[in-house]
């Protein structure tokens, strides 16, 4: 209306429209985007540096995107800064969640004035941002090692172990470190020793195999089947080979759909004794699910999925270098926090029931503990106050805002692991839960406290969330998690 954006004849632009032909963009751009003098000028290097700055901010931009951007710039009016911005956004495929970062960097890198800021800030070699979403560099990880060993992350197992009399569940001399499954399943996570931990992780990996499945609407050829619906296409094809005689009918049946999961894990202080197990459980599920997204939250929401992927890759490279399986497993497994402490001898000296472990493990599956430790360490290092208080409402609202549309659909189960202890405002929580409930196939809330038969979901946050939870399940021991599996099926 007032601001006409479709001039009947080109309104006079602030500068004369130069003939912006593909073969001569460099001069115009050099003017438009005056790069730091030392860094050389010209469109290509400038774009490359801009792309790098974007990557440093965690915006996924690849070489091909930069090439597209270059081509797009040759097609638009380089004198029109907004048009350049729009063209770059389209060609570099900037998603809405990255739009703010893009606009900010664009303002810095593509200005007509020689940008003082641009000259000093974007030093891709030493990025300043510690954005948790960006791909990790080895640096901070190494740094976190000692920091983790601070006493604040003292887990329950330390104290719990002394309560478990040697020989009660772990027969002395007979495969120490291995607990009979039945006992293990009922043992509360809070009472577990580090040795139990490992056995439990293996058990979980096996349990995850049972993740029930649902037939999909996709049809797959069923070879050699005599039941199932007739597959006309393949039947006729076969018939053609026999001169048009339908000698046998080809069948097809529905594909098995693997479930999709989104897991939101509370890592606040009150959840500490459980976090590790629940993460182990999730990682085990992850190998079976078609897609599993993992988020951690306490005072802020962090998407862990990219970290997991990364750790899997680096694990592979590590394993390729590692010693033969004989003794290769214990060294890189620091106990939780200082959990090992004085007992670290027992921890490493105990011969692992390797044979059993290898059997259970899926092909290519890593020792889950290693991956979990890594993730926990990184969480501790990179997420401010990661083991502090909880703001469930805000975190879930942030999830609903940023991720819900993309990650959750009618086939996705949302799993929330939290004790629901939150002193914050419950308003955003109810809103977020409703949004999640509206989109997900089902919402499951795992609450370690619910293992107690007297438990009632009366904590304010829990009470606010309950109307939108399909099922509140306990998560204090393995048996509880096991009972959950059928519910998670796609």
């Amino acid at each position: 209306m007032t601001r006409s954006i479709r001039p009947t004849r080109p309104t006079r632009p602030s500068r004369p429209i130069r003939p912006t032909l593909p073969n001569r963009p460099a001069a115009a751009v050099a003017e438009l985007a005056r790069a730091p003098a030392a860094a050389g000028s010209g469109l290509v290097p400038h774009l490359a540096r801009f792309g790098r700055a974007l990557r440093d901010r965690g915006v996924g931009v690849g070489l091909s995107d930069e090439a597209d951007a270059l081509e797009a710039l040759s097609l638009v009016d380089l004198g029109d800064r907004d048009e350049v911005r729009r063209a770059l956004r389209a060609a570099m495929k900037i998603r809405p969640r990255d739009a703010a970062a893009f606009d900010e960097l664009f303002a810095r890198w593509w200005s007509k004035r020689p940008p003082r800021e641009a000259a000093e800030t974007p030093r891709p070699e030493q990025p300043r941002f510690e954005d948790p979403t960006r791909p990790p560099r080895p640096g901070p990880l190494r740094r976190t090692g000692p920091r983790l060993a601070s006493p604040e992350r003292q887990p329950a197992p330390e104290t719990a172990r002394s309560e478990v009399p040697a020989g009660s569940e772990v027969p002395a001399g007979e495969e120490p470190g291995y607990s009979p499954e039945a006992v293990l399943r009922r043992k509360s996570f809070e009472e577990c020793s580090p040795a139990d931990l490992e056995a439990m992780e293996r058990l979980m990996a096996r349990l995850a195999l049972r993740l029930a499945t649902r037939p999909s609407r996709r049809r797959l050829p069923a070879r050699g089947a005599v039941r199932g619906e007739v597959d006309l296409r393949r039947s006729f094809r076969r018939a053609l080979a026999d001169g048009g005689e339908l000698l046998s009918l080809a069948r097809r049946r529905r594909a098995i759909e693997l479930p999709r999961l989104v897991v939101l894990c509370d890592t606040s202080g009150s959840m500490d004794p459980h976090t590790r197990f629940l993460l182990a459980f999730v990682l085990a599920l992850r190998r079976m699910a078609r897609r599993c997204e993992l988020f951690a939250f306490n005072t802020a929401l962090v998407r862990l999925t990219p970290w997991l992927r990364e750790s899997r890759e680096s694990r592979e490279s590590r394993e390729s270098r590692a010693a033969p399986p004989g003794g290769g497993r214990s060294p890189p497994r620091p106990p939780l926090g200082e959990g090992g402490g004085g007992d670290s001898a027992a921890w490493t000296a105990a011969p692992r029931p390797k044979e059993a472990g290898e059997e259970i493990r899926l092909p290519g599956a890593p020792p889950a503990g290693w991956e979990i430790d890594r993730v926990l360490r990184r969480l501790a290092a990179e997420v401010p106050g990661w083991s502090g208080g909880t703001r469930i409402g805000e975190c879930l609202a942030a999830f609903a805002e940023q991720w819900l549309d993309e990650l959750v659909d009618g086939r996705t189960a949302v799993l929330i692991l939290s004790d629901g202890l939150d002193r914050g405002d419950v308003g955003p929580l109810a809103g977020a839960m409703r949004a999640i409930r509206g989109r997900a196939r089902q919402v499951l809330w795992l609450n370690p406290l619910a293992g107690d038969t007297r438990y009632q979901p009366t904590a304010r946050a829990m009470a606010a969330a309950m109307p939108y939870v399909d099922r509140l399940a306990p998560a204090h021991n393995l048996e509880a998690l096991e009972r959950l599996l059928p519910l998670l099926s796609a």
Partner: protein
Amino acid sequence: MKPEIAELLQAMERHGYVADAAVATAVFLAKEMRRPLLIEGDAGVGKTEVAKVLARLLPAELIRLQCYEGLDVATALYEWNYQRQILRLRLAEHEGKSAAEIEELIFSRAYLLERPLLRAITRREAPPVLLIDEVDRADDGFEAFLLEVLSDYQVTIPELGTVRAEHVPYVVLTSNRSREIGDALRRRCLYLYIDHPTLEKEVRILRARVPQAGARLAVEIASFMQSLRRRRLSKAPGVAETIDWAQALLRLDRDHLDLETVEQTLGCVLKDHHDLHDLGGGELEAALAAALAEVPPLPAAPPEAAAR
């Protein structure tokens, strides 16, 4: 703004699509670079409409492939007409043709059923507009297959050989972001995110699409829709709902909004039980009053000018 882009913007408006500079730029680039355009945005913001208007203004044939879970090659690309093949085979037996002859006969183009993707690349006359709608609904596997077709614009049919595109089609993909589109496919495309329109744009859309609606009604509807979208709704209404609502109100002979009218017709706009419930009680009245208070003074009558 480059004259060509301004021209495209105008042409889109002439064909009934109120675009903004971002849309026009992206469409222009996709057209010039001959790259697929991936459009994302909430339901009802006019993603599909971009492809339709592009087909109208070029002009070109619009070929549409609606994606759904379980979409397979037989529905998307090609299928042999088995029934006809069998019949032909029977006839050929009486004619005493050799096996090789028969094979050549029944595996020819005449017995091939072209599905949208194949049709899009075999058009001889002019490049068509290929709309691949709601690509997020198809399986990941289909996405990979699509990637192959969209990078070479050729398809291999075992019995026929490779079919190359006569003309590279203009491709528009839309996604409701019900799942994330794979990186590889996104890289292959240019990208456009369409947000809900501003008040000004929404009024212009209304005037263009529902010209019978008066200026006052259009502004009031748009203003109320804007205020609705600012609320935390589980399903924010899109432009499609705005247009539906305007048409419904016209049928009811309303020329402005009042509480009773809105109460009766709110179902055109909010299609979620919780959202309707949230606006119950005095809430709706307050929301309407607030929205109407925001309506810019009418005497300026800018919508007339915009609607030409």
